[in-house]
């Protein structure tokens, strides 16, 4: 294999290739790759469309709502997340190996990827900028309570914080606590309450969200 990126070859690493205007640079790169037959622009269109319109946090919200609504599903989700998420029709790229961790009154889970920006795409879509940013990646492991405070979440001292650093190909989804006062709600209404932030662990799910959205 000719592709050797080891540091001994780093002198060849030419960052002049880094775009000063990324839009122009990317356009030029695409036209070259298309002209060489290396990519099909229709495949690029389909991929962009899938992640802009089909694969996003509403998928994860439906998984969470099902778990709140159906205790047997919740058990399956916590013991074999891959199979339980597949039951809902989700899975695939960057979510091949899933683990779901449950929040409670005594435990709060928070997900990060300190080394890059690993994130469970099939259930949450592509990560927001803050998740990929140096402030979040650097601080989530050393000061999770400070990070949560910046997201407006002040955790009581008696709550145990568990940070999950996604260093391998396992992707984590937080199962937030079901808010009080939602006992009579159906699955669809429950799913509407669930936020992306709550499923990463930087937020909680509140009943008031429905009020403000109404």
């Amino acid at each position, binding site marked *: 294999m000719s592709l050797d990126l080891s540091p001994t070859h780093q002198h060849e690493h030419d960052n002049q290739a880094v775009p000063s205007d990324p*839009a122009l640079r*990317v356009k030029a790169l695409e036209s070259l790759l298309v002209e060489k*037959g290396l990519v099909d622009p229709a495949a690029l269109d389909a991929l962009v469309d899938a992640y802009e319109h089909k694969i996003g946090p509403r998928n994860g919200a439906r998984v969470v709502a099902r778990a709140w609504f159906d205790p047997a599903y919740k058990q399956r989700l916590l013991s074999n997340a891959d199979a339980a998420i597949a039951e809902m029709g989700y899975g695939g790229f960057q979510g091949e190996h899933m683990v779901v961790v449950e929040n409670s009154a005594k435990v709060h889970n928070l997900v990060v990827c300190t080394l890059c920006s690993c994130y469970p795409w099939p259930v949450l879509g592509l990560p927001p900028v803050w998740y990929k*940013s140096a402030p979040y990646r*650097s601080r989530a492991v050393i000061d999770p309570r400070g990070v949560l405070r910046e997201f407006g979440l002040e955790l009581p001292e008696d709550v145990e914080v568990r940070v999950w650093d996604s260093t391998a190909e396992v992707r984590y989804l937080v199962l937030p606590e079901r808010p009080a006062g939602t006992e009579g709600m159906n699955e669809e209404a429950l799913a509407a309450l669930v936020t992306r932030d709550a499923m990463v662990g930087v937020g909680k799910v509140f009943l008031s969200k429905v009020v403000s959205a109404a």
Partner: protein
Amino acid sequence: MNSVHDMGGMDGMGPLVEEKNEPVFHDEWEGRIFAMNLAMGAWRKWNIDASRHARELIPPAEYLRMSYYEKWVAGLIELIVKSELVTRDEIESVTPAAGSVKVVPALTADQAMARIATGIPAKRNVDAPARFKVGQRVRTCNMHPMRHTRLPRYARGRFGTINRDHGVFVFPDTNAHFLGEKPQHVYSVCFAARELWGAQAEEKDSVYVDMWDEYLEPA
């Protein structure tokens, strides 16, 4: 390699900024470079570990200055040039080299959808010995390889407990350099926050890090 991508525990990176109603892509080019990375991956000239390593090789000052998708531009260019799918001259001139043969794309739109639905599993259905079991105390290796690793600096030489065994996975430290998949168990290892950060951390907090078998020794 001990570069700036390994940023767990660093200070001074600034405040967290959450954008309200954030779009998936902030500009059209972000979506295009994202999709090009996925589509070019279908040529199977590299693997996910090699593509992560390509981004880690971006010099630290550049790495911190660039946006996420700017790193994907730099990383993809590195990969396609090193794998000889494209030459630097072709990139600079935006023209295929004279006499180069036009190929048929590795991925059609339908195949792209199938690829993201199936994913690219890193789990391997092979027998590999699990040297550790759930509940066991372990110590992580103190190692500083010049090459790709997924053992973050903040968790090297630390004591923890095996929380769960995820099964057998491809080993990035070799796979990123095309030295073989070397499948081995990956465990979630629980570290007390104070083991990692000292007395400033809350006593009951913990950090769970996924660790390959080779990163660990019995404690």
